[in-house]
């Protein structure tokens, strides 16, 4: 009895599309649907949601049966949790520090934290890179392009 139900990535893929599709259709049905001649705002969302849900079922269905691609894992071979964390933490810090402290700390922290995500990076190399990018960024965006983003909030530079 080797006919065991095996999980495949395509099942996840189909399920995700089904979920988004149904979600969109249900949310969309809350808006006025209208008629074909006078479509309301809900018409397209419901229609597209239904199509997407249907596509999700098709994606999962075509993956049934034996296939050469037996990869059932969602995560890659060597998950880079730390790397992913750093890449996402960088912009989050950019938002927080940007809102409360200003452009210089935001840019510096963003680049520094992102750089740490690489396996070969050291504190020193990341610091140097972050400093370099910050200087370049301030020159380009603050002085040349004049984007409205104070360098340091509360300090008049």
């Amino acid at each position, binding site marked *: 009895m080797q006919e065991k139900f095996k999980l495949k990535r*395509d099942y*996840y*893929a189909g399920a*995700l*599309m089904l979920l*988004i599709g149904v979600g*969109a259709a249900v*949310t*969309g049905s809350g*808006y*006025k649907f209208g008629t*074909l*001649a*006078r*479509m*309301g*705002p809900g018409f*397209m*969302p419901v229609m*597209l949601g239904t*199509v*997407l849900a249907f*596509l999700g079922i*098709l*994606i999962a269905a*075509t993956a049934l049966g034996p296939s050469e691609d037996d990869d059932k894992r*969602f*995560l890659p071979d*060597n998950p*880079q949790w730390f*790397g*992913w964390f750093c*890449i*996402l933490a*960088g*912009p989050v810090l*950019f*938002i927080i520090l*940007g809102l409360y402290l200003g452009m210089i700390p*935001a*840019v510096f922290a*963003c*680049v*520094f934290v*992102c*750089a740490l*995500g*690489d*396996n070969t*990076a050291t504190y020193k*190399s*990341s610091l140097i*890179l*972050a400093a370099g*990018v910050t200087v370049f*960024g301030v020159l380009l*965006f603050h002085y040349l*392009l004049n*984007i409205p*983003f104070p360098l340091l909030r509360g300090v008049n530079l």
Partner: protein
Amino acid sequence: MISTAITDLYYGFGVALEPHNLMYCFLGVLVGNLVGVLPGMGPVATISILLPLTFGMQPVPAILMLSGVYYGAQYGGAICSILLNLPCHPPHAVTCLDGFPLTKQGKGGTALGITIIAAFVGASFGITEMIFLAPFLVKVALEFGPAEVCSLMLVGLLAGSTLAKGSPLKGIAMTVLGLLVGIVGSDIETGQPRFTFGITELFDGVEIIALALGMFGIAEFMNSINNTETVDMKYAKVGVSDMFPSKADLKLAFWPMIRGTLLGSLCALIPGTGPTIASFVSYATEKKISKTPERFGHGAIEGVACPEASTHSSVQGDFIPTMSLGIPGDTVMALLLGALIIHGIVPGPQLISQHADIFWGLIASFWIGNILLVILNVPMIGLWVKLLSIPYRYLYPSAMFFVCIGVYAASNDMFQVGETIFIGVIGYILLRLDFHPAPILLGFVLGPRFEENFRRSLLISRGDLMTFIDRPISAFFLFICVVLIAAQIYVWLRKPKILAEGKAIEAQVPTTPYSELAE
């Protein structure tokens, strides 16, 4: 018709040669060439980062610059393929097959020289095609009512999603997802907020820059981090003098170049078949008709000339449907269309007459840009080769800075940065599930216009869906859609031989973690 084209072109050169415009065109191709060389950076991410910086500019220099990035990146991409065997840019992946063996034989310089000549020939033909074909298409398209526009968009969306890499079903799913993302925001007719979940910032819709940088920036970096090979620079030594090909090489490359150019320009006309498909098709054809197919893969100069010429002619031809019909053929074109809209220009058949300066200026700038690129690449080849060795660990953090500040500068709102992070995470999940994110952008850009035209055509026909079949042009477009779907089902059921050959070539191309998406 030829004489008006020449007058218009003359006017275009006047626009493109204005010092201000010329400067931005130069800047565009320079940046394009740069990101083309750098492994792990693609034109999509670059154009999205530059887009907010053009808000304060006039539309003409802005569009010239952004377009320059696209075709400039094609020149740089070839360097990476030939010298390092790294297909950083999908259209140039096939060039690795013969380009890298040539490099190993010490003829990398010749390969690069041939590439530049092929690129220029291909691009020139693509531009000429655009000059004559676009005004003609416009004449036809001006007769279109909402029903025709709607059906045409359907062709574009379907072709864009099914002909791209990967499973066609998943491609269509991504297009539909893109259309749904395009719905977010206030409804155009009633003002009803849709899918905003009560978030005020979403009332104006999802920011195109946030979508593009999330999908092609953050998701891409998450995919490549600690997953890139160290670049082997062993063979990458090229001097300017090596770049001039011998007479024998030129003779060998001449016809493949012409054939590649023609194939590429043909591919450009079919919506959804961009440069990547063009280069693969032309390589396969060249190998097939060659008297010595066994030389391919071991450093045949034809194997470099043909796909490169076809890539470049297809890249320039890509602009035809975008500029004349307002229907983009691929991701980069979708982004450029978005750029036009942001600059207050309504894309569509009226663009050429209403914004002649943009259209003809753009065409003239293509030529100027291509000449600039040849000049940039020949004497400065050593510099570009040096850039190849910049490690990824310096590249992506710097790129993340540009992503953050670019999204912020688009609307001076930190909310957009958060939106980008969110889209990036979703994008990475989609990537892991083998979804190709390119069609999302296509659906997103066309979505609002598709809905508007769909509503309008049914309003005119009083709710009669037959309007799409009763009108002959619209029926023709729908017929193409049916053919596209039927062809996909046929391929899925029968798996014909040509496809197997295509797959075989694809399998030979070295894989790299980055840049599935750099298209």
